[in-house]
């Protein structure tokens, strides 16, 4: 089962090297998508098998799309998406792959809510989780987790239009729409920089997008 990991990165010179090293142990190929970084992300990502560069910062949604389309060209069976900020532990990859082998179409690594999770993130996740549950009648604990594994064959159904952080939620809406088999497994998350990643403004945008998708559906 050929597995390719996609690591979208924007100004992640501090952590990208460790993420690549950790990920390479469990996958056949690693693709870093440098999303218009202005630091040394590209130099630090040299250990990846392939580094693709967006000339300007376009957002996580498009970076993932670029990476996944490259992975599909490389004829992969399974795609792993993992954040470049070392928030996710690459040692959890085998657990995600195990569920794929068991038959799930997509596996979501759900971050456990503990003391280490910053308050803003905790509140944001709680709010988005409940909004998603109310609107789409699906109980996924961590709708915003970027640590996922899925079969490349389901990409046409999962395919999203969001360019920013709403990508994770849109993926879930599509998996619900097409009745894809999913599984959530708890993962431990490490928060290296509380000022990076999804901001409260992104949270509001995601919520508004959810309302829009609900209307569309």
């Amino acid at each position: 089962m050929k597995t390719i990991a996609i690591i979208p990165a924007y100004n992640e010179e501090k952590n990208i090297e460790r993420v690549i090293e950790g990920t390479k142990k469990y996958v056949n190929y690693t693709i870093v998508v440098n999303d218009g970084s202005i630091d040394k992300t590209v130099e630090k990502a040299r250990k990846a098998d392939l580094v693709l560069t967006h000339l300007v910062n376009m957002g996580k949604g498009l970076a993932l799309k670029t990476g996944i389309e490259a992975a599909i060209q490389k004829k992969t069976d399974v795609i792993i998406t993992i954040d470049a900020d070392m928030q996710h532990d690459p040692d959890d990859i085998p657990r995600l792959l195990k569920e794929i082998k068991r038959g799930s179409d997509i596996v979501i690594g759900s971050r456990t809510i503990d003391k280490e999770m910053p308050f803003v993130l905790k509140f944001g996740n709680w709010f988005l989780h409940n909004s998603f549950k109310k609107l789409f009648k699906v109980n996924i604990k961590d709708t915003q987790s970027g640590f996922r594994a899925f079969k490349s064959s389901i990409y046409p159904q999962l395919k999203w239009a969001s360019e920013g952080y709403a990508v994770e939620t849109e993926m879930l809406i599509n998996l619900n729409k097409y009745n894809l088999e999913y599984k959530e497994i708890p993962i431990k998350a490490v928060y290296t920089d509380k000022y990076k990643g999804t901001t409260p403004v992104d949270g509001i945008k995601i919520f508004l997008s959810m309302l829009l998708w609900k209307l569309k559906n």
Partner: protein
Amino acid sequence: MVVGIQIIGIIFGIGMLFFSYVYFRRKDFGPRDFLFWVIIWLAFIYAVSFPKQLNILLDTLGIVSALWLFTIVAFLILFALVFYLHVIVRRNQMKLGFLVKKLALKKIK
């Protein structure tokens, strides 16, 4: 009699007409854009020069004063412009996304 505020309005309208012409000559505006803006500014100059002519329109629309008419029309234009700009920004964002993705993927071909 033409009052001071009307003179300012007329000068403003003529100035905007001139700018529209300049943009047209620079080819920033096509003939349709130019014609649209000429009509807008001529209508503005006419309304400022003969404000009493607006009374017919005010009575028809049931609006109390010309000030209200200007405010309502201004808001309508503002909303339409915001919507129009949103569409353009979204369209450009999609075009940019397409180009950026294509350039990034070129490396593996």
